């Protein structure tokens, strides 16, 4: 480390950004390994339907299937844009 590092602004810590991205994507992929195959298509079709009425992006809708002991829960998350 040089003397100038004391006065230098700490550069953006790209490693922590990378870690954040990885945590999200790895969790997502681990989850996906136990999901049935039809979910991506179903998600896309739901997005298309909502898009007819409200303008949203593809990543504002998520569909997940939770298989616990005696029941399965299909969870649908839709994040609407600010002014609806």
């Amino acid at each position, binding site marked *: 480390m040089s003397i100038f*590092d004391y006065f230098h602004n700490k550069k953006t810590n790209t490693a922590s950004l*990378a870690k954040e991205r990885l945590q999200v994507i790895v969790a997502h992929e681990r989850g996906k*390994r136990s999901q049935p195959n039809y979910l991506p*298509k179903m998600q896309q079709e739901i997005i298309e339907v909502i898009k007819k009425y409200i303008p949203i992006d593809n990543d504002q809708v998520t569909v997940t299937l939770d298989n616990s002991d005696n029941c399965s829960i299909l969870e649908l998350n839709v994040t609407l844009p600010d002014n609806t």
Partner: protein
Amino acid sequence: MAEIIVVTSGKGGVGKTTTSAAIGSGLALRGHKTVIIDFDVGLRNLDLIMGCERRVVYDFVNVLNDEANLNQALIKDKRNNLLFILPASQTRDKDALTQEGVQKILNELAESFDYIICDSPAGIEKGAQMALYFADQAIVVTNPEVSSVRDSDRILGILQSKSLRAETGAEPVKEHLLLTRYNPSRVADGEMLSVADVEDILAIPLLGVIPESESVLKASNLGEPVIFDETADAGQAYSDAVSRLLCEEVEFRFLEAEKKGLFKRLMGAR
């Protein structure tokens, strides 16, 4: 009709995906509609390097199996609307790739794109062979290191004999050498193979020399191809390479070791 360029190497970890991302982005920045395809079925990483990992809904194999159409699978880059990505499948394996299927997709893409970049997986097995089979041009990514050079030579042999152009007797695939992770001071010390050494052994035209740079790791952390970082030496070197790919003559930079005086060392340069 699109130009199909495969980015391949034989050896793993030399910078194929970094290069595919940088050169694909570079071509789009110059106004050419470009798509980058990840051929590493089961181990996708192009989406991470491009920063679009959260927008992957459908992938290459879904399109191959008619589970989705191309428009549903293609991801438009947020930085440049001429740049698109076709991600690989993370759950299937290479058996899903068939020559007819891949050809069909490439033909469809060729109708609307200027450049199709095929990011090859490492090795010489099915995934790598499929990535290079339909290529018009090949960028052979090589580190100045013995096993990388030999593997690059091997992949050149395969390009010459197992590509569609070779099998039909058409004009051979145009080969380019891209030397990556080049460290001029180590070359000056005689510890690293020089550009001339590698050119002598591989005997193909040099497209570019990308210096070993911290900016490459930062770029993948951020999910932003290094060519978008205009201050980075690696980014600039990739930009020069894109120019040469477009047949412009550009002098080679970053080949000489920087002479660091005392002042620069105080400033924290390494």
